């Protein structure tokens, strides 16, 4: 349906445009400015050109934190997506338990992120935390403050606990939209449970899953609060993900130039992956 265009609408959008300009565009330009120059404060700038970018792209520290980030994002998506689908499949779609399940699933998403970090910090403490103590008393040598493996495990576990619900709720919505007739027809066709999943449920959830994966990718790639509160990036720098590293450089060392360059590279990486994702998704739609 074609609606008639109304030019007055632009006036209504103007305040938002101003706000976006102030909050996003101008700061972004400032960062670009910093990334191309060197400063020691007092508003004295020396032109550096692209040398910060070169330094960052060559620095081992950057490569390390990028790899750590990619590993982390890969792990949580690999765990959260199948788990989320499985939970969504097992949730009832009719009856009195539906609202109970939905509320339970929504709860982790409502907790402020630093509280999540703090919760898991205490929960995982090797001497007084429930998780930490249980694992140690079962014979595992667990201490997330000292051991990299434990720290990774805990961080991943925390993210899975926090965010799987998002995937569950999105997939559940997709599942609920499948009419009963499909299941009945599958029964009549003698389809096994796996066949029903593969040929009916999964295709219908495809759209929803794409959005879920995209959201999780973006969020986890930019993750800061929870791991920072949980491990502070440690032990050492074993759980120092990209954004944590960035903040360390910018605010810790006050190297504004490299920090600005790094954040731009960071921004472009995320943008690139999202664009690839989006294009693939759109091409699938057209098919």
């Amino acid at each position, binding site marked *: 349906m074609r609606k008639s265009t109304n030019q007055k609408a632009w006036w209504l959008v103007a305040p938002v445009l101003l706000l976006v300009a102030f909050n996003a565009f101008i700061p972004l330009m400032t960062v670009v400015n910093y990334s191309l120059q060197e400063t020691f404060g007092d508003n004295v700038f020396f032109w550096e050109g692209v040398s910060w970018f070169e330094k960052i792209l060559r620095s081992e520290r950057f490569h390390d934190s990028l790899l750590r980030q990619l590993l982390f994002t890969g792990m949580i998506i690999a765990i959260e997506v199948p788990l989320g689908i499985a939970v969504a499949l097992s949730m009832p779609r009719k009856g009195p338990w539906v609202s109970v399940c939905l509320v339970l699933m929504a709860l982790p998403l409502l907790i402020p992120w630093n509280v999540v970090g703090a919760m898991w910090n205490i929960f995982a403490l090797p001497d007084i935390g429930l998780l930490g103590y249980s694992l140690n008393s079962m014979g595992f040598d667990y201490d997330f403050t000292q051991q990299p493996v434990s720290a990774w495990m805990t961080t991943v576990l925390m993210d899975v606990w926090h965010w799987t619900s998002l995937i569950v709720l999105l997939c559940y919505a997709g599942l609920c939209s499948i*009419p009963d*007739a*499909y299941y*009945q*027809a599958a*029964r*009549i*066709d*003698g*389809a*096994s449970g796996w*066949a029903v999943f593969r*040929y*009916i449920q999964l*295709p219908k959830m495809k759209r929803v899953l794409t959005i879920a994966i995209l959201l999780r990718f973006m969020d986890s790639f930019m993750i800061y609060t929870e791991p920072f509160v949980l491990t502070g990036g440690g032990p050492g720098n074993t759980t120092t993900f990209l954004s944590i590293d960035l903040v360390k450089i910018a605010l810790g060392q006050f190297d504004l130039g490299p920090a600005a360059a790094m954040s731009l590279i960071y921004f472009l990486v995320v943008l690139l992956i999202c664009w690839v994702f989006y294009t693939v998704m759109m091409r699938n739609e057209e098919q």
Partner: protein
Amino acid sequence: MSRIEFKDVRHAYPSAAGQAPVYALKEISQVWEDGGAYALLGPSGCGKTTLLNIISGLLTPSEGSILFDDREVTQLPTTERHIAQVFQFPVVYDTMSVFDNLAFPLRNRGMPEPRVRERVTEIAAMLDLSDRLNQRAAGLTADGKQKISLGRGLVREDVNAILFDEPLTVIDPHLKWQLRSKLKELHQQIGVTMIYVTHDQVEALTFADQVVVMHDGAVVQVGNPIDLFNKPRHTFVGYFIGSPGMNVLPCKLENGQPVFANNLLSSGYPVDTDISGKLEIGIRPEFVSFCDDGIPVEIEKVEDLGRYQVVTVKHEAEQIKMLVGEDQSIPSISPQIQFDPASLRLYCDDWAVETPDA
């Protein structure tokens, strides 16, 4: 292939504790002969879909039993009843090709691949889908998808019956007759029991050898199309079949003969004079005609339908519809009508009063 029998089946949907159960399906005892073409005809909410789901096993009746060839199947799950069902909205597996869709039920049952190929090609030819076997199923039109749904039922060799739940609902009106004819053709070719649920009398009367007319959860009449039309045993059948439906008019009995509007209607109806209850006569619009000396009426409306005209007349408070031929003229001065006595039927409390020759 088998003979399906319903014994005292009743079904009530679960109701709140303390409340009397509401029966969606009242007492039904019915036999569906092997290889027959049946239609379940009735308005929305009459229980026909419930009945169909009980046959296929998607629903277990709250009372009664179902037998396939004298074998009790009431508790048997759907997959073991060897039933195929075509739903109102086409159900196809979008990600698969047409070929794979048709092969799906066979592969699930472990049929060897060469036999699968043979069977699918055979059925696809019957349904005129041969040239689209490699297309993605999602890309077909509605009637193509319904054919796939139908094909998935036909492709199995062990099918006891094929059930249709208003399958032509989503089909384009001018393509409906094609699919209807195709179904009838298939039935003649394959000879498997087919049970077809619809609210459309044309679909039912065209497709079926025996039509089961349902009303309010009960079976009102079972018969072939001709009998249902000429000898409706319940006023509902008379009303529902035929377009426009039968005229049902209140009457009285005098000396065993029905009288309407002070006109003695000779009907060859020697009836027990002590019948009591709501008495009505039923006469189809086709059998009402103008005459020179009959019941005086006023003409309310004339509709030109091409092949005939539908004239709505009124006698006092009663409205009567009649069918008049294309070229026949309609009297404008004091029109009078008569009823063809051979087609007159008497009803008491909605059920037909049987005459000796009925």
